């Protein structure tokens, strides 16, 4: 719904603007810029608008259909009329037509017919083939409205692959878009807020998705069980991102300073070795570590067993799992810091060290008062960027632990190492209690707010730094 509207409207405007830019205005600036705008609008903006929209709906398992689809399902529900007879039937297929046989009556019809009058045909055309059971099902499913007029019993419909029945709609239309249950005579109540038709409080048919306003946001912040899961995951996300940045920066800075003081070829060789992890596609390294950290056959426990260390549950136990994801992320992430800091160190003019050595500074003092503040100042925007990256580092968590170990008493499936983005993934794609796209979109929105906040901070800090 939303998507087709959004695509249609943006498509219309994009074409209109394209005509204006390329045929009328002919301004070079826009002509160069526009193709990227089209891609951006269609494949970034429209999906984002969709996410935002979904966060205000109850789009989830049990509410995946549109209202009209649910109404159609309810309208099509049939019951057999009380005290009516069921009739056996057979269909014989001919090259251009079908023959329906009920007891001693029959009638010919072609593929497009929507009704048939049964009569007493005596001459059966030759070379017909009876439709098999499996074909019959598809045949009658394609003809829900097919009316069979029986001379004595009135209107019949296809009911099963072997039976015709006098079926009537279970729910009779009543007033504007209302229904009455023909079994009990009760009115079908539509709960617009929930997106569900109900009969005496019981749900009838599947729900449809509908606009629910801030309900998802309220649930996230007010419902005790959901709130617990959200804030627990949120705090671990912050710890994870902070610790990842701190560890990778520390090791990267330490190695960069050590390497910077070395001379000759060894410096080059060490550096090449240290950036190897950075050159391997991220998902491959993480999956390899998943294997190596396996409790029963992984190389790490294998190695430890030489020292009679009993197998460590690297990925199975809360504390170890958290240590594992951080250590693997350190292994993967420190080369980036090393590379960047090396670049910064090389850009620091040698002359300032000469000046300080004239003053009699030790190498530690040099590091403490000259190198470190200079590196940190240049690094702050990159550290904030790295923080934002790790906040959403789905691969680093999901491929290693799958978010596990699972928290047993949580209301929704969630693990001890799950971060917000992997929580979103669970909500949307692998919930054991069904998929909850609405809530997943809501969590996405919050992540977006956090990341944008960090980015704005990043800009402010960079601007401040570039001024001083």
């Amino acid at each position, binding site marked *: 719904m939303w998507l087709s509207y959004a695509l249609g409207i943006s498509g219309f405007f994009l074409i209109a603007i394209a005509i204006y830019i390329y045929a009328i205005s002919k301004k070079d600036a826009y002509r160069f810029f526009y193709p990227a705008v089209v891609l951006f609008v269609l494949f*970034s903006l*429209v999906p984002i608008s969709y996410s935002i929209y979904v966060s205000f709906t109850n789009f989830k398992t049990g509410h995946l259909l549109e209202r009209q689809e649910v109404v159609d399902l309810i309208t099509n529900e049939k019951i057999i009329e009380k005290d009516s007879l069921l009739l056996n039937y057979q269909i014989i297929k001919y090259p251009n037509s079908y023959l329906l046989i009920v007891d001693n009556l029959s009638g010919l019809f072609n593929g497009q017919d929507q009704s048939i009058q049964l009569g007493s045909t005596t001459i059966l055309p030759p070379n017909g083939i009876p439709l098999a059971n499996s074909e019959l099902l598809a045949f009658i499913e394609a003809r829900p409205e097919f009316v069979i007029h029986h001379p004595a019993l009135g209107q019949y419909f296809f009911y099963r692959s072997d039976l015709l029945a006098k079926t009537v709609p279970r729910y009779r239309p009543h007033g504007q878009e209302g229904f009455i249950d023909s079994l009990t005579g009760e009115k079908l109540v539509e709960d617009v807020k929930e997106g569900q038709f109900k009969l005496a409080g019981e749900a009838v048919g599947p729900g449809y998705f509908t606009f629910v306003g801030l309900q998802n946001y309220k649930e996230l912040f007010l419902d005790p069980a959901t709130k617990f899961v959200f804030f627990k995951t949120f705090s671990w996300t912050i710890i994870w991102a902070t610790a990842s940045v701190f560890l990778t920066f520390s090791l990267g800075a330490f190695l960069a300073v050590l390497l910077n003081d070395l001379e000759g070829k060894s410096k080059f060789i060490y550096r090449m070795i240290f950036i190897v992890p950075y*050159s391997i596609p991220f998902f491959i390294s993480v999956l390899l570590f998943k294997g190596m950290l396996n409790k029963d056959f992984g190389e790490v426990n294998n190695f430890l067993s030489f020292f009679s260390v009993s197998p460590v549950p690297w990925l199975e136990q809360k504390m170890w799992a958290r240590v594992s994801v951080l250590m693997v992320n350190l292994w993967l992430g420190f080369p980036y810091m090393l590379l960047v800091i090396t670049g910064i160190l090389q850009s620091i003019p040698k002359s300032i060290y000469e000046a300080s050595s004239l003053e009699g500074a030790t190498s530690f003092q040099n590091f403490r008062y000259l190198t470190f503040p200079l590196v940190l100042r240049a690094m702050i925007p990159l550290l904030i960027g790295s923080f934002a990256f790790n906040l959403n580092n789905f691969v680093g968590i999901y491929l290693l632990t799958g978010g596990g170990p699972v928290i047993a008493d949580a209301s929704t499936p969630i693990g001890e190492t799950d971060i917000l983005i992997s929580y979103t993934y669970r909500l949307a794609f692998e919930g054991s209690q069904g998929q909850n796209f609405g809530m997943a979109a809501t969590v996405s929105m919050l992540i977006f707010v956090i990341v944008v906040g960090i980015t704005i901070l990043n800009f402010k800090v960079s601007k401040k730094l570039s001024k001083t």
Partner: protein
Amino acid sequence: MSSYLYKKKNLKKLLIHLLLIAIAVVVLVPIFSVISVSFSKAGSLKSGFKADDFSLDNWKYILGIPYTNALGEIVTSPYPIMKWLFNSLKVSFLSAILMLTFSTTAAYSLSRFKFKGKEASLMFLMVMQMFPNMMAMIAFYFMLDFIGQGVPSFGIDTHGGLILIYLGGTPFNIWLMKGYFDTLPKSIEESARMDGCTHFQAFTKIVLPLCTPMLAVIGLLTFISTFSDFILPSILLKSQDQMTFAVGIQIFISESFASRWGQFAAASILGALPISLLFFSIHRYIVDGLAHGGVKG
């Protein structure tokens, strides 16, 4: 005194080297262990570095060459692993080329022209790029489903559709490229314009040839990141023949990981090697790019 200082300095140097070597070992041991596993006999778990354990079975399995296993059966991999690798290379290559095309023109416009809404659109692009993509996956799915009804070669389970979605990530490259264009003096095109070139001619004939190295780097970075992506293709690609490498090798993880460990190791090396080599071929330029605002990481 001086010999004492000298000794102290040497000792310090030795300690530093020992430390660096220790870290280098931690970095390299996982890689060597994966390589050794890939050459060990299929199915033997606690392998180590024994010589009699050496076998090419895992590699034959990955490369689709039949081999005889321990039970004497002839085994051929049921998975089109080389096809996956080819798919990945194809999708990544085409995405990189197309993205380059669209982002260079946009970046050039942002760098060279003054126009209304320039600053605002730059900022907007930047902020929108931060939206977590996870939910958009559902939108992507429905969109491709919709497009596929009209143009089947861009529907779900097609490489065309996947590439189309990747192109939405174009704005990220615009930032990197704009920074580079800013460093090129304007005078180079101005003289061409004086001689009667259109802007477009000046751009294609004068500016683009000057930025070939930069285009190569950004193209390769896009290539690498597309190659490594697995979430989007795992949602959009259904049939085994269409899968990319990153999606396909998940099969080794999901079913009986332990007995497939050797095969997975070989597959990983096969996938990592081209990317690793690419990375080392351009790593000097990446370092420069990193210092200007984070490329991957």
